[in-house]
């Protein structure tokens, strides 16, 4: 089977996963996605379109991703063909990773995080020394900070799961769902809940490049609360320890009270500022007391948020006053604090409604984060408990660990600043050029003090090829290697290489399903250096992008300027097509050409705006990328070629060829000259956000105005169902009849309806009446069989109760009489406007003609309202503003129906016929 694209076939893909790649889900060799995807498997010899890849690049990729040159110095030539992945910066690792995780990971990196690129350095030590060495390293790393836990948030975790699944994380990572088979190219994720706390994971996700400067993990363009939600998804089983004393007070206040003068109703200890201790939701107050541990002296900011009021006191002095009754409001204050424990008090009161309180801290070395991790019951470090195993830094172990960090080689890869200077590695290794096949790190079974990377045979072989090979690298290959190392290929296809893998394809979603794959999958980057203007390419690479946010759920993340900036020139060097724009001589002044361009883009010519947004105006169809950004983003030469045949540049695109086969489809603009027309569109769009809005975007009202005859409008009318039939009468009175429920649904005065919703664009949604004095009449069919006059009015759908709509007949003034059948009866429901000199507004006179025979007791419900007052015989005032008068009705019943009132008329057929008249005056 020959495959040209990612999609392949299901069969082919199973084959691919099953045999072609060494999918070793339990193996612990370092996982480098670019290597696994393109170099670990031999290409399918039957696939003539399979890209031809030079295996040397696979080796170079590993040299960089495994950071070999951190220990083995490389010559200049080799440096040019290796992009090293710097190991995480560990300056503040203590505030990022939990102690237990550090211990597990250092002692057994490959089983703690299968696929990690960190080698095992401990295995090279004599067995007897390993435990002590690990402990010393852990103490040293933990000496750089402390982690703080946050309350678990189940709702947040659920949202976080959704964000993890669709924000692009799964382009590189494996879903946590164990049912999804291991994808060999997945970048390993350890059990993040063991490693991070919610605040530390959130801080990492917000700016991963800060601690992992080589950008392999990019920053997603999400909001803070979204990062927090993702963190909650990973960090779930948090056992919280009581660290705060509380005292609950009952009362109703309009400002934070002085609790010292009040008597608490209950007291105790709790984990964090936990308002559930009050045991109620309104009219209470809580005073929280604890000790705030400050490690580093300096100025700290406190952010106290609450609904209703609150107050923060530290060391007996007021820091934040957030008093009064209000929705959740955050107020901030700051205080200089010495290292040590400081008494802290949070006073809080709640009146009614929502109830919240939270306290955040930021200061020297601390990102803004929940203060809870710094709060303790007593002015000393707590004794160890099962939930929080004791860990007290041992100064001598810290020193020993620092020594090991330098001597074992940790410092070769990891930056770790102590007193502003990075620790230098004392590990010596051979220069790269002296490395030999099957020796040292490249041995099948690495022995001695050497680091254990867990390399598999293919990786060792690839490394050898790169070590032995030349250091020449064509420009195209360099671009490819960069894309493979940053795993750009996980999302983007370039030429025949990369693009979303079949197994990951379902994780890419679109907000505009109708756009198909191009609304869902990130764009091709074939020829991207030709397509995008250099400035824009730089902007996208450096800042990420969200130009496609109207349809594409994933966004271009930020990889860090140093890592991607060289691509701007590299893409241009490889991709640029130097063919100049066709020379055009405009036959008219530019302003006219621009107008022609505007016309072409608009709804009466090429209709680009039927799919593309334009400035602030959404398109009338799908929401494809904004036209006013085209000039800023795209090279005009590329646009000129693209417009002539979009399929060449974006195979499968929905973008039509406006100049098919080199001919203009609009022949009456600029003489039908293709070059001129394309130039005119480009000239017009060059105005960017200032370009005049083209015709067809802004919906203009289309009021239907009956003049001599009624206008019938059968469509989706709000309040009248999907089978609504609106009738606007020249007398400025209107009605809407619901052909699902056979009911007169609404009556109103004045303007009839605006048809623009349904008569422009696709006609999405329900349109409400345009006029005034709108009265919505009773729901449900107006007739029912009631065995007893006390039976409740049925609420089943009319069509399921035997009603059949039969259409309508127009009278001599074109006014419809609606017809339906029920229980053997034929009914015509015919309304006509009545105007009277003394009345400013027309009324309606409705005639129900019921014919046929039935043995069932049938009732007509003339009204359902809050209040029905009898004015005179068969005349009623409905809810104080509508007067109805019944003619031909006998034995009218006014009855209570729940908290409403109904007006029922028994249907008494005389000679197989009943004519009931009902007038509506309002």
């Amino acid at each position, binding site marked *: 089977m*020959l*495959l*040209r*694209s*990612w*999609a392949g*076939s*299901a069969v082919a893909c199973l084959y691919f996963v099953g045999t072609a790649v060494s999918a070793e889900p339990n193996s612990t060799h370092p996982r480098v996605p670019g290597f696994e995807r393109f170099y670990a498997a031999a290409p399918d010899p039957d696939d003539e*379109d399979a890209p031809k890849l030079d295996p040397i690049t696979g080796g170079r990729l590993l040299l960089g991703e495994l950071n070999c040159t951190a220990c083995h110095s490389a010559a200049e030539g080799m440096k040019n063909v290796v992009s090293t992945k710097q190991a995480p910066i560990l300056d503040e690792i203590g505030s990022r990773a939990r102690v237990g995780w550090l211990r597990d990971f250092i002692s057994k990196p490959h089983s703690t995080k299968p696929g990690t690129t960190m080698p095992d350095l401990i295995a090279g030590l004599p067995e007897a020394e390993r435990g002590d060495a690990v402990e010393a390293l852990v103490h040293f790393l933990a000496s750089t900070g402390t982690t703080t836990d946050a309350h678990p948030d189940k709702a947040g975790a659920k949202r976080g799961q959704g964000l993890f699944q669709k924000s692009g994380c799964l382009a590189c990572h494996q879903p946590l769902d164990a049912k999804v088979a291991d994808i060999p190219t997945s970048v390993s994720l350890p059990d993040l809940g063991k490693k991070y706390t919610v605040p530390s994971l959130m801080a990492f996700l917000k700016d991963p490049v800060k601690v992992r400067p080589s950008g392999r993990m990019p920053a997603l363009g999400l909001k803070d609360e979204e990062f927090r939600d993702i963190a909650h998804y990973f960090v779930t089983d948090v056992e919280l320890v009581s660290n705060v004393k509380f005292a609950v007070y009952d009362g109703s206040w309009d400002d934070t009270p002085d609790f010292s003068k009040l008597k608490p109703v209950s007291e105790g200890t709790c984990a964090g500022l936990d308002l559930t201790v009050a045991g109620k939701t309104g009219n209470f107050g809580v005073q929280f007391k604890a000790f705030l541990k400050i490690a580093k002296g300096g100025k700290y900011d406190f952010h106290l948020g609450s609904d209703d009021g609150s107050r923060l006191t530290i060391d007996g002095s007021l820091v934040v006053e957030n008093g009064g009754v209000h929705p959740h409001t955050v107020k901030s204050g700051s205080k200089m604090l010495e290292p040590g424990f400081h008494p802290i008090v949070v006073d809080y009161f709640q009146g009614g409604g929502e109830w919240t309180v939270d306290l955040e801290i930021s200061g020297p070395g601390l990102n803004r984060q929940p203060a809870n991790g710094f709060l303790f019951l007593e002015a000393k470090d707590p004794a160890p408990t099962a939930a929080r195993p004791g860990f007290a830094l041992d100064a001598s172990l810290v020193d020993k660990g620092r020594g090991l960090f330098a001597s074992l080689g940790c410092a070769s890869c990891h930056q770790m600043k102590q007193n502003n200077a990075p620790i230098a590695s004392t590990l010596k290794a051979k220069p790269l050029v002296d490395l030999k096949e099957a020796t040292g790190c490249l041995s099948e079974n690495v022995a001695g003090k050497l680091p254990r990377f867990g390399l598999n045979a293919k990786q060792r072989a690839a490394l050898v090829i790169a070590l032995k090979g030349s250091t020449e690298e064509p420009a195209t290959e360099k671009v490819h290697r960069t894309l493979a190392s940053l795993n750009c290929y996980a999302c983007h296809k370039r030429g025949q290489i990369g693009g979303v893998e079949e197994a990951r394809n*379902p994780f890419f979603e679109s907000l505009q*399903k*109708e756009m*198909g*794959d191009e609304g869902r999958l990130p764009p091709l980057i074939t020829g991207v250096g030709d397509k995008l203007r250099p400035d824009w390419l730089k902007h996208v690479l450096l800042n990420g992008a969200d130009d496609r946010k109207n349809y594409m759920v994933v966004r271009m993340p930020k990889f860090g300027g140093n890592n991607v900036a060289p691509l701007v020139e590299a893409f241009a060097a490889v991709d640029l097509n130097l063919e100049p724009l066709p020379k055009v*001589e*405009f*036959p*008219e*002044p*530019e302003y006219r050409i621009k107008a022609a361009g505007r016309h072409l883009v608009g709804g*009466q010519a*090429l*209709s*680009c705006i*039927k799919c593309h947004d334009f400035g602030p105006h959404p398109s*009338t*169809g799908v929401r494809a990328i904004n036209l006013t950004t085209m000039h800023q983003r795209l090279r005009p030469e590329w646009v000129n070629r693209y417009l002539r045949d979009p*399929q060449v540049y974006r*195979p*499968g695109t929905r973008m*039509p*060829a406006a100049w*098919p086969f080199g001919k203009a*489809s609009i022949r009456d603009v600029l*003489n039908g000259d293709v070059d001129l027309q394309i*130039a005119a569109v480009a000239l017009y769009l060059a105005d960017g956000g200032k370009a005049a809005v083209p015709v067809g975007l802004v919906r203009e009202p289309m009021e239907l105005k009956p003049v001599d005859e009624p*206008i*019938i*409008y*059968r*469509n*989706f009318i709000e309040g009248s*169902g*999907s*089978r609504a039939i609106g009738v606007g009468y020249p007398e400025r009175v209107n009605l809407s009849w619901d*052909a699902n429920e056979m009911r007169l649904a609404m009556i109103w005065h004045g303007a009839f309806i605006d*048809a623009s919703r349904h*008569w422009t*664009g*696709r*006609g*999405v*949604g*329900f349109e409400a009446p345009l006029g005034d004095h709108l009265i919505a009449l009773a729901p449900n069919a107006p007739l029912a069989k009631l065995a007893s006059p006390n039976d409740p009015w049925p609420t089943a759908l009319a069509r399921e109760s035997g009603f059949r*709509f039969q*259409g309508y*007949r*127009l009278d*001599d003034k*074109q006014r419809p009489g609606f017809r339906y059948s029920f229980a053997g009866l034929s009914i015509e429901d015919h309304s006509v406007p009545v105007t009277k000199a003394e009345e400013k507004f027309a009324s309606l006179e409705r005639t129900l003609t019921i014919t046929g025979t039935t043995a069932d007791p049938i009732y007509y419900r003339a009204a359902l309202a809050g209040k029905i007052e009898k004015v005179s015989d068969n005349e009623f005032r409905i809810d104080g503003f509508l007067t109805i008068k019944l003619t031909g009705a006998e034995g009218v019943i006014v009855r209570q129906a729940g908290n409403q009132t109904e007006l029922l008329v028994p249907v008494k057929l005389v000679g197989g016929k009943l004519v009931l008249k009902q007038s509506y005056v309002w």
Partner: protein
Amino acid sequence: MRFSVPGLAVLFVAWGSLLAFAADKPPVENDFYRLIPFEIPKEIMLEAGGIELLPDGKLAISTRRGEIWMVDKPFADPPKDAKWTRFAHGLHEVLGIAQRDGWLYATQRGEVSRLKDTNGDGKADLFETVNDDWQINGDYHEYAFGSKFDRDGNIWVVLCLTGSFSSECKYRGWCLRITPDGKSIATCSGIRSPGGIGMNALGEMFYTDNQGPWNGTCELKHLIPGKFVGHPGGFKWYDLPEVKAVMGPKPAEPVSGSRFMTEAAKIPEYEPPIIMFPYSKMGKSASGVACDTTGGKFGPFQNQMFVGDQSDSTVMRCFLEKIDGHYQGACFRFREGFGSGTLAMEMTADGSMFVGGTNRGWGSRGPKPGALERLVWTGKVPFEIHEMRAKPDGFELTFTQPVDPASAGDVKSYSMSSYTYIFQSAYGSPEVDQATPTITSAKVAADGKSVRLVVDGLKAGNIHELTAAGIKSAEGLPLLHKEAFYTLNRIPK
């Protein structure tokens, strides 16, 4: 880009095009099939959804805005003084009209209705609901396309899914037959987003469906009562007793990511597309369906079918044959340049094809918001591939005119590629399973009217795209349209 002397530049452009015409110009579509546009009065928004020629010689056109217009003298050429009168208004997006016994039947979103002018004032005054057994929720995508009467007097209605993805209320994603006495019969499941419905010369029913979930590209499908045509979104309605009675039990659901013919082999109820229109090569939104039953008045393509494309504003031509009891066949380009997005198509006995269009909501190459045009044969026969028939070892091409044996007998005059689309629940599909079959011999028949191609590497289930760029007619002309796309579901034995 600089403004230059205007007069000179205009002259230059005009001079250029004059030169182009002076050259020995190859024939163009208009030489054989001529478009006669109607001038539509400005106050009428003719987004034509249905067309029917009435016994009194007037042409009725139904619109998306719910009007029905009558045009007198529709065959006038040019139709300059045609009189437009409004027969009805206030209907809900009428996508199909047909007349019988003095009634005009109209398929609206919510029902099939019939309309009559009982007082002779030229306007309908009686609007009877014939059948409204299906439901609508208020989603704009809930379109209903209605056919003409079949030989039993039924109107067939194809109902778009809710939002074109799922079936949120009764019969969305189904085809119903509405009998002369107003009953509905569940007929086919598996509809996604239809664009038109029509019969072949034998009165069998076909409809077009559009690229989306379970439709890798746009297609022509055969509506055979009891069959499932691809999108399982509406399967829940098999549970209704009235459906079960005529359709039998619910079929197995197709496996997403598979191929059309793979699933057809497993699911007996599944009737795969009979012609796939390769996406963007042959349009992007297949629409109306018509058949030339005029006995030669429309040129050499008797009994062939024609399918519109809304986004490209074209009409395509389809040749169908039956292999193992199932239709399949080839599509060809036929005529481009319609004024708006092709939607409704109606062939009349004199050999005219009326084509109506709209480009509201979905853009089209033809720029007008609405259009009505008549396409007529000029009497000149274009040099075209007339039929493309599958053979066990290749294809047989027949031509509308004798071929030049030298070029037509040279395998280098042809090239072929093949591919298919993924049958999947995700939207659309790229082309997959590409192959390059080799044409090993091309043998011209003695009469010069057909060529037998022997092809190495035919692949059942693939569309075989043939380009016959090198062949010439006996008169030395190139083909008017060089490409043919054969949906080779089955290779004949």
